[in-house]
C-alpha cells in the first residue's frame, strides 16, 4: 500500500489572541504543533503499512518552519516527507490549498490518502473533500475505524453519523479523514526524534510544480477574508456563593424559570 498523509502545522490554540488595536492575529511567540487530528491520520497510515507493507509519505504546505511537523511524522515512523513551500502559496484558502496539494499528489503513486478531519486553527474540514474531488477519487470523511483489504483493493470504514455510525465500503484509491477515537497515536521516542532530524525532507516550490502563481495562494483563492474581529464578549454573569445547597439549587431553579421553564 502506498499511503499519503496530508498534515498541517497549527498554532497551539490556547495562545492565539487578537490585537485589540490592529485587529490582526498575534502569532509571535505562539508555539506550533502538529494538528492533533492529523496525528490520528499518521498513526493509521503507519498501522496500515505495518499490516500490509508499503510506504507512508507525509506532505505539508506551509512556511519553511512547517518542516518541524514533518520531522515529528518521520519520528513516528513515516518513510518520506515533502514540504510544499513558496511565498506564492501564502494566504491560500481551502480551495487553493487543495488545488496545490493535488498538483503535487498527481505526480505521486498512492492507494490511500489520509487527512485529519479538520485543522484546529481553521476548523473548516474542507481541504480533504476538495482534494479528493480534484484528484477524482472517492472520499470517506469522519472515519473512526478503517479496514483495508489489499487483495480486493477495497476499504471498509466506520464513519461517524449524528446518531451512531455507518459502515461504508469503497474501492481504492480513496481519501479518508480521521476523527478522534480512530486510534491512539504513538509517541516518538527521543532516539527516533534525533534520527528523524537527519532524514531528508524534500522541498517543492511553485516553480517545481510548474504552476501559474496566480492559481495558488491568496491569488488563487475563491474566498477572501475582508475583516477579522474579536468576538463579542459574553455579558458578565452573576456569581453566587451560597453555603446552603438547598438555597443554591433554588437559585438555579429561579434562573431557569421564565427562561427555560415556563
Amino acid at each position, binding site marked *: 500500500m502506498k499511503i499519503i498523509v496530508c498534515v498541517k502545522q497549527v498554532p497551539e490554540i490556547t495562545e492565539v489572541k487578537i490585537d485589540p488595536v490592529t485587529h490582526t492575529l498575534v502569532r509571535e511567540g505562539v508555539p506550533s504543533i502538529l494538528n492533533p487530528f492529523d496525528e490520528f491520520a499518521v498513526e493509521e497510515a503507519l498501522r496500515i503499512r505495518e499490516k500490509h507493507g508499503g510506504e507512508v509519505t507525509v506532505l505539508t504546505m506551509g512556511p519553511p518552519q512547517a518542516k518541524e511537523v514533518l520531522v515529528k511524522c518521520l519520528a513516528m515512523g513515516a518513510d518520506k516527507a515533502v514540504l510544499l513551500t513558496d511565498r506564492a502559496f501564502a494566504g491560500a484558502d481551502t480551495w487553493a490549498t487543495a488545488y496545490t496539494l493535488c498538483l503535487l499528489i498527481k505526480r505521486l503513486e498512492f492507494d490511500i490518502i489520509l487527512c485529519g478531519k479538520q485543522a484546529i486553527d481553521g*476548523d473548516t474540514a474542507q481541504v480533504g473533500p476538495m482534494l479528493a474531488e480534484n484528484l477524482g477519487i472517492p*472520499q470517506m470523511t469522519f472515519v473512526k475505524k478503517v479496514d483495508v483489504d489489499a487483495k480486493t483493493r477495497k476499504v471498509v470504514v466506520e464513519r461517524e453519523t449524528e446518531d451512531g455510525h455507518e459502515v461504508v465500503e469503497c474501492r481504492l484509491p480513496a481519501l479518508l479523514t480521521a476523527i478522534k477515537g480512530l486510534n491512539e497515536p504513538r509517541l516518538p521516542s527521543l532516539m527516533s526524534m534525533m534520527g528523524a532530524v537527519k532524514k531528508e525532507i524534500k522541498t517543492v516550490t511553485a516553480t517545481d510544480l510548474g504552476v501559474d502563481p496566480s492559481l495558488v495562494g491568496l491569488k488563487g483563492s475563491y474566498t477572501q477574508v475582508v475583516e477579522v474581529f474579536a468576538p463579542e464578549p459574553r455579558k458578565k454573569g452573576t456569581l*453566587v456563593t451560597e453555603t446552603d445547597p438547598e438555597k443554591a439549587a433554588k437559585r438555579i*431553579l429561579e434562573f431557569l424559570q421564565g427562561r*427555560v421553564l415556563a
Partner: protein
Amino acid sequence: MSAIQVKETCTGCGVCVKACPFGAIVMVEGKAQIGDSCTLCTVCTRICPQHAITIERPMVPTEQFKDYKGVWVIAETSEGSLRNVSFELLGEGGRLARALGEELSAVLVGSEVTKLAKPLAAHGAEKIFLVEHELLKHFVTDTYTDILSSLIVRYKPSIVLIGATINGRDLAPRVAARLRIGLTADCTGLEIDAERRLVQIRPAFGGNIMASIISQTRPQMATVRPRVMKTPKPDESREPKIERVNVNLNPVATRAKVLDKVKQLSKASEKIEEAHIIVSCGKGIGSQENLKLAYELAEALGGAVGGSRPIVDCGWLPHHQQVGQSGKTVSPELYIALGISGSIQHRIGMQSSEMIIAVNKDPAAPIFSIADLSIVGDIFQIVPRLTEQLQGLNKPSKQH
C-alpha cells in the same frame, strides 16, 4: 468549445449512455455525443473505461454574476424526516432573499421524500426542487454531489446554504471543488452588504477570532452551524410549489456503498448535537457512577448529557458525547457545566451556548468567566436537590 469533450479514444461501448443521469448522451457513428441536457455532473468521466470524456470547467466571469439569482437551502433528511437545521436555514435564507428581492428555494433530495415538501414550504420555501429516487435512500457523497452540482449549473442560484452537519460538511466541499467555487465553513452569521454580496461570518481559532468572508465566485456557498439561526414559525397554509427534477441513477457510478447503518445513540440523552439543553460533567464528577446525577438532571430538564475531555479519556463517557475542541461544538439554549473547570479547549466547544450555568467548588474556575450564573458549591449537594425541585414542578411546560 464546450466544457465537455469526447476524445478520439472513445470506442463507442455505450457505458456512458446508460450511466448518464440526465439522458444526455447518444451514440452517433460509434462515438459518444453529448447533448444539450448535459449538466456537467461528471458521472460519465468517472465511468468511461477509456477515460475518453473530460470536463474543463472555467470560472464564472464577474460580468456573469448578475445571471445568478435566488437563495437555495439544501434540505437534509434523516430516516424520512427533515433535520431541524433545514428549517433554521430557511428562516435565515428567507431573510437574505428578502434583502436581495430574490426567491427562496429548497432543494430536497432523497427516496420517498415528496411528503417533506409541505413542511419546507410552511417554513418559507417558495419553491422546492425535488429529486426523488430509490437509490437516494442513504446519503452517498458521489450521487448527492452529482445531483447538487448539476442543479446549480442548470438553475444558477446566487446563494447556496447547507447545514454544517456531518453530511453537509462532506458534501459541500465536494460540490464547491467540482464547480470551482468558494466555500465558507460553519458560518454563524450571514449578511448582505451594500454591493449585494453575501458576507459570511465565522469563528476561527476555536472562536477566539471572528472572520468576515466574501466569495469571489458564484454561487456564493456556505455551510451554516446548526442551532445558531432561529427556526421560523411555520405557516401551514402555504402550499408547496414543487419543481420535480428527474434523474436516472446508475449504482455503478457510485464508488462508495453504505453497507450498514448503526444507531448507537438511541436515547435523546446521548445526542448532544440536537439537544436544546445539555448537562455536562467534568473531572469534578469523580466517577462514572456519579454521572447518574447528570442523567437525572438532564431527564428532568428534557436534555442530553455531555462531558469534557478528561472524563472521556478516563472512559466514563463515550467520545461522541465529548464537548470541546477534540469533541463536538454545541450551542444549545442552556448549557449546565458541573464540575468543569473550563479550559480553553472546552470553552471552544460550548461558548456559543445561549445560556450557561456553572457549578464548581473552585471560585477561580475559568468556566465562571463565561457563565451567566455561576454557583460556587458542591455538585453532589446541589444537583440532587435541583433535580428534586424540578421534578416537583412536573415537567417543563415549554416543549421543544
